[in-house]
């Protein structure tokens, strides 16, 4: 066999693997726990009291079910997808920009909601959310969600908090009398193109954008132009939450898109910052606990999904991470530390204003053909590089 035909055979094998039919079948009944559970999760999402003693939602589960929890943290949605493709895990806390990729790649299996007694306590708005509900099947249990808020320095804005994203997109004089140039930040991820598109939905209605994740060529070009103007205002794009925190402390930043996580940490540190949800609305993330198609510990996995909904987990995690629980009762019924005011602070009442992250795909619902994600990636690199 010469080299060429060998590699052709290898690729043929790959293609055959990719094309194999979906064999994922739902679990229909639960048995005893298997003794362990392997989860891929965002850092800080699954705490067992080791970072801070008060934040523990794992040991109780282990004692009650005998399922020992192993956590593998992943820093980006792409790492999560890669880990799940490798296999060997039972569950993953996937954001909306990863979940559909895994459904399409047949890495996750549909969840039998009848085996999760607390399923009905899930927020009705999330039960059939498009980032995990595909073809009439639930691929996972909603976990946590949060908005990407506009964080601002109260020293720069004084008594006049910003009401529009224009403070990070267009050059202007801020209430403290100085220009915003060099004092704003933007997210260093291609998904930030959606924030520009969201801004254009209000300010350029003639473009006819329906969803910030579904952009045709013209709409996409307009969003990129806006981002090119923004490049002139931005000194450094933020990528890592802790670097952004540091920049607000040490670089004299005035405003930036951010997560409640950074706002809470900065405020706890006494930094003069606050956050708003501007008039244009916000983008946001919503995570789902999804189950691997070849999960070796399905019983423990189902027990964990029930645990996320019925225990102190969502309530305490909501305090810890500045996110909102998928089960609204976790805000109010005192099962953990979170209170109704705390959830309001995390943006719980603003669900309607949040456009949740999705992976932009070519075949889009609103207008037939849209600019796909990989173009967002290469073009956003160009924008940051000054092109």
């Amino acid at each position, binding site marked *: 066999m010469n080299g060429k035909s060998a*590699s052709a055979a290898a*690729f043929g094998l*790959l293609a055959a693997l990719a094309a194999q039919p979906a064999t994922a079948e739902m679990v229909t009944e639960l048995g005893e726990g298997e003794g362990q559970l392997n989860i891929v999760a965002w850092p800080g999402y699954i705490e067992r009291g080791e970072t801070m003693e008060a934040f523990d939602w794992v040991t109780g589960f282990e004692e009650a079910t005998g399922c020992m929890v192993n956590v593998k943290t992943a820093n*980006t949605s*792409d*790492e999560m997808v*890669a880990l799940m493709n490798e296999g060997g895990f039972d569950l993953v806390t996937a954001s909306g920009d990863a979940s559909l990729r895994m459904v399409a790649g047949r890495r996750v299996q549909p969840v039998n909601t009848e085996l999760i007694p607390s399923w009905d306590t899930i927020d009705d708005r999330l039960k059939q959310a498009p980032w995990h509900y595909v073809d009439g099947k639930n691929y996972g249990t909603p976990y946590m969600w949060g908005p990407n808020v506009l964080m601002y320095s109260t020293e720069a804005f004084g008594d006049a908090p910003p009401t529009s994203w224009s403070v990070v997109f267009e050059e202007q004089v801020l209430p403290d009398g100085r220009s915003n140039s*060099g*004092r704003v930040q933007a997210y*260093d*991820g*291609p998904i930030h193109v959606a924030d520009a598109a969201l801004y254009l939905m209000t300010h350029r209605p003639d473009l006819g954008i329906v969803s910030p994740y579904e952009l045709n060529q013209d709409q996409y070009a307009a969003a990129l132009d806006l981002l090119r103007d923004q490049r002139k205002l*931005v*000194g*450094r*794009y933020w*990528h890592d939450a802790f*670097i952004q925190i*540091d920049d607000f*402390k*040490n*670089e*004299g930043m005035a405003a930036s898109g951010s997560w409640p996580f950074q706002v809470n940490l900065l405020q706890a540190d006494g930094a003069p910052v606050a956050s708003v949800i501007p008039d244009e609305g916000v983008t946001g993330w919503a995570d789902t606990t999804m189950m691997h198609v070849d999960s070796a510990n399905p019983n423990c996995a189902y027990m964990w999904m029930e645990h996320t909904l019925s225990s102190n987990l969502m309530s305490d995690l909501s305090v810890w991470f500045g996110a909102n629980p998928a089960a609204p009762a976790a805000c109010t019924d005192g099962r953990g530390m979170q209170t109704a005011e705390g959830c309001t602070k995390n943006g719980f009442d603003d669900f309607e204003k949040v456009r949740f992250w999705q992976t932009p795909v*070519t075949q889009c619902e609103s207008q037939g053909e849209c600019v*796909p*994600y*990989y173009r967002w*990636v*290469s*073009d956003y*690199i*160009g924008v*940051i*590089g*000054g*092109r």
Partner: protein
Amino acid sequence: MADVAARARNSARAAALSRVSDALWRRPSLLLLALVVPPLLWLGIVYLGSLFALLAHSFFSIDEFSGLVKYELTLKTYAELFRASNFDILVRTILMASAVTVAAAVVAFPIAYFAARHARGRWKAAFYLGVMLPLWSSYLVRVYSWKLILAKEGILNWVFETLRLTWLLEAYLSVPGIGGNSLSVSWTGTFLVFLYIWLPFMILPVQAALERVPPSMLEASGDLGARPGQTVRNVVLPLALPGIAAGSIFTFSLTMGDYIIPQIVGTSARMIGQAVYQFQGTAGNIPLAAAFAVVPVVVMGFYLTLARRTGAFDAL
């Protein structure tokens, strides 16, 4: 009986062993082969194999519509490297690597010269400690501490303020290209951190080269009437050049491949390492990531050929 059988087995084993030993003695090349094959396999399969996989991927392309990799040989992906936004990344990275290398040579030479020719005893120990000590602490810790040094409200700014020289810094930062809102978000900041992080890799080979310059040559140069400056130019520098070339291989290639420093300090504009990371991880555009990754290999290939001509490898 059992005893006899065991003895027979033992003697059979001894005979086999001695045959093996005889064979190895008669044909030394067999022994050499046995010793060399495992590392060769490692080099061939793990190292060259992965490089080959990388190279192969760069000749594929990504399907414009589905975003899936098309396994057909094409040069399209390499053509994409020349698209303005991608070409910027290459130019930017190579410029940065060159600037860091030149600056590292300039800074390292006097330090290495002092260590090689003047430092004795305790001073020598202090030199080694001073050069090596930063390498003992985490790379990330050092980069983050530089972020704090260079920040707008950081130490360096405070020094300038105390000296009433803020205007000077601001004038510098207003220069387009190298300036920015503060040192920590400018290319100057990225450059300084690269220079600091890779400096030890330049100092040590230069020092090794300088120590090999015989003092008698300097004396001869002086006896023949050369001024100190002439001695340095015509005797020391040419003899130290292989060391500088060896050090520059480290600083140049390390700068070209790094993707953490420009992410923490700088303007967020990408360098090659970051582009590879992002195209491979975020975009799933493995062919383009591979094509980007081939660039440093090619550049280093040229660079090493040049360095070999200057005799850099004699100083390793």
